């Protein structure tokens, strides 16, 4: 490394998001291409990522996790909001202006097959960051690349091979090596293990954890798999339809989920013991997330929420500390779950919840016979 990042008093926050919003216009028509509608992929997200931590970002498919990751990496332009990397505003920089910042934040991609160019040799792929940022040349670059390969557990002699000659897990290691080449501070990992065999996942997760200790990395770890997040994260943020519904320390979130959606996600984790699985009841939420083109008014989760009441339709809940929770445990819900409270069983939800909301009943219990 020729130039080290400016060393001052180490700020606690690496990446800071304020009201980050990303809308995608849906265009229709022939020549004029009018904007017909807007997909609210990410809406008004405020979140801090602390140095050295692993922030897990969970949510269903289509909840905007990957778009948020691309916003954090500035791979897309933000519709609104600001993004601070080490206190510097990078939300409005052009691609060219962003280049020096790219060294400090890197991304690990989901698909180990799609994220490596099949026509290029692995050594050249991992050497890309050095070439793009003019860091090392020739023999020096080759040596750096081989060190990286060794660091992520690949045989450095396979420098000249093509991606097709590696397994999925090995390919993901190549992606990790490429992301870590310039020693970034922040690594955004977008579902880095979801495309891998279950037996390989543990290896890659272990590798990421080891590298975090070794290189003092900060991770944003995106996944739809709560059990993975539980293993790797210090803090977890739960997303639903482009918004954060709950953010909490890992233990806190698992012990005292406040948002009904968090609770439902948690009960969906498979239990590896069949006897135990029979005993636990699953508070399944029904249906699929509504279209992000026309998100529901008020709380976006209300059409599927077993605890929904008319207030939930009328007013959008804000992320706040509920009950006697720790200051970093915030929930966006009008009627958070108390300690140990269970969600009503799935069957009753289907009949009662939408009816209750539609009738404008103030309490779900009144609507029930």
């Amino acid at each position, binding site marked *: 490394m020729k130039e080290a990042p400016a060393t001052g008093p180490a700020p606690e926050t690496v990446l800071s998001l304020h009201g980050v919003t990303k809308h995608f216009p849906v265009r229709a028509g022939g020549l004029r291409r009018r904007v017909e509608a807007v997909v609210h992929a990410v809406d008004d997200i405020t979140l801090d990522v602390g140095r050295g931590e692993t922030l897990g970002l969970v949510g269903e498919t289509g909840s905007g996790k990957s778009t948020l990751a691309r916003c954090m990496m500035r791979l897309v332009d933000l519709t609104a909001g600001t993004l601070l990397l080490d206190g510097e505003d990078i939300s409005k920089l052009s691609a060219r202006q962003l280049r020096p910042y790219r060294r400090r934040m*890197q991304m690990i991609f989901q698909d180990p097959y799609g994220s490596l160019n099949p026509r290029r040799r692995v050594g050249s792929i991992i050497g890309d960051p050095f070439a793009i940022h003019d860091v090392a040349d020739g023999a020096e670059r080759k040596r750096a690349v081989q060190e990286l390969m060794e660091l992520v557990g690949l045989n450095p002699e396979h420098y000249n091979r093509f991606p097709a000659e590696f397994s999925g897990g090995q390919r993901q290691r190549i992606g990790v090596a490429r992301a870590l080449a310039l020693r970034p501070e922040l690594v955004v990992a977008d579902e880095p293990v979801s495309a891998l065999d279950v037996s390989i996942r543990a290896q890659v997760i272990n590798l990421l954890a080891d590298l975090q200790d070794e290189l003092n990395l900060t991770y944003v770890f995106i996944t739809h798999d709560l059990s993975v997040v539980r293993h790797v994260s210090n803090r977890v943020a739960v997303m639903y339809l482009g918004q954060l519904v709950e953010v909490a320390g890992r233990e806190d979130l698992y012990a005292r989920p406040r948002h009904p959606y968090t609770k439902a996600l948690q009960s969906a984790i498979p239990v590896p013991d069949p006897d135990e699985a029979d005993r636990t009841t699953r508070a399944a939420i029904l249906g699929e997330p509504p279209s992000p083109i026309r998100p529901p008014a008020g709380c976006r989760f209300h059409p599927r929420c077993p605890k929904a009441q008319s207030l939930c339709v009328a007013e959008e809940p804000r992320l706040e500390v509920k009950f006697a929770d720790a200051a970093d445990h915030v929930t966006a819900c009008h009627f958070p779950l108390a300690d140990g409270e269970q969600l009503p069983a799935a069957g009753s939800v289907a009949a009662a919840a939408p009816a209750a909301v539609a009738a404008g009943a103030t309490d779900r219990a009144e609507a029930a016979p």
Partner: protein
Amino acid sequence: MSVYDEMLVDNVPEPEGPGADFSASAIKARSPWQLAFERLRHDRVAVASAVVIVLIAGLAVFAPVVAAIVGHGPDTQFHLTGLTPEGIPIGPSKHFLLGADELGRDILVRICYGARISLLVGVVASGLAVTGGAILGMLAGYMGRLVDTTLARLIDVVLAMPYLVFAIALWTALGGQGGILLDVSVIAFFSFGAVARIVRGQVLSIKEKEYIEAARSLGAGTLRIMFVDIVPNVLAQVIVYFTLLVPAAIVFEATLAFLGIGTTPPTPDWGSMLSEALNYYEVAWWYVVFPGLALLATTLAFNLLGDSVRDAFDPRYSRIFTKEK
């Protein structure tokens, strides 16, 4: 306790680590290009076609040598030895291996010189069309929006033009000037559109690949992404299209010459030879058969080679008649 926690506690041995793998010398990494070349080398049709193409190219290059050996210049008229006393061209014989034409010129020598024009026009025009088409297709596919729409309409217009009428009109407007240059420009102009479309489609699909996003997240600029990440992925297609475009361009050139466009009379050209021969085929079959065979052999060889090259780059689409190896 989740599934992963247990697995991590067990600490699965890592079969992927260094040392567990084959030694690097046991398996040599071969690039997709090397693999394609290997397949091509074992394809008998491809090898035979390549041999034919090399032979014809050799005749073209060494046409003066051939002329010197048989002792007949390409434009020299042998009224005494090449024509019967009645003025009819003589057939294949000791002095005229492939016979003579109506002016007593040696058809073999003229075919050799004609190959120069055919190959030159075919390769240069195809090269221009492929280069131009590939660049425009890349721009259209990568830039999108206005650039894409403009280029797409332009290509539509070009492909909608009646090319023969256009060539004849241009030839007339130029007053019969232009020669080979006219051939090359007309052929390239009417061929680049198809290449541009193919490349544009490829680029559109490659652009959405995660490795392009990875390059952007590393800070790579547009030019670097285009040349380092996209070009190697469209090159194979472009090469295949080039080998298939060459025979089409050769036939196109012959067609133009047949109609009297481009090359002018004393110049030996397969198309104009065939056009002249039509007046004499009843008395001199060799006059139409040998130039025709030369044209057929050349285009057939290029077409077969093009098919083989495509199969070599993408073995999934091998031809129907696959031979047992």
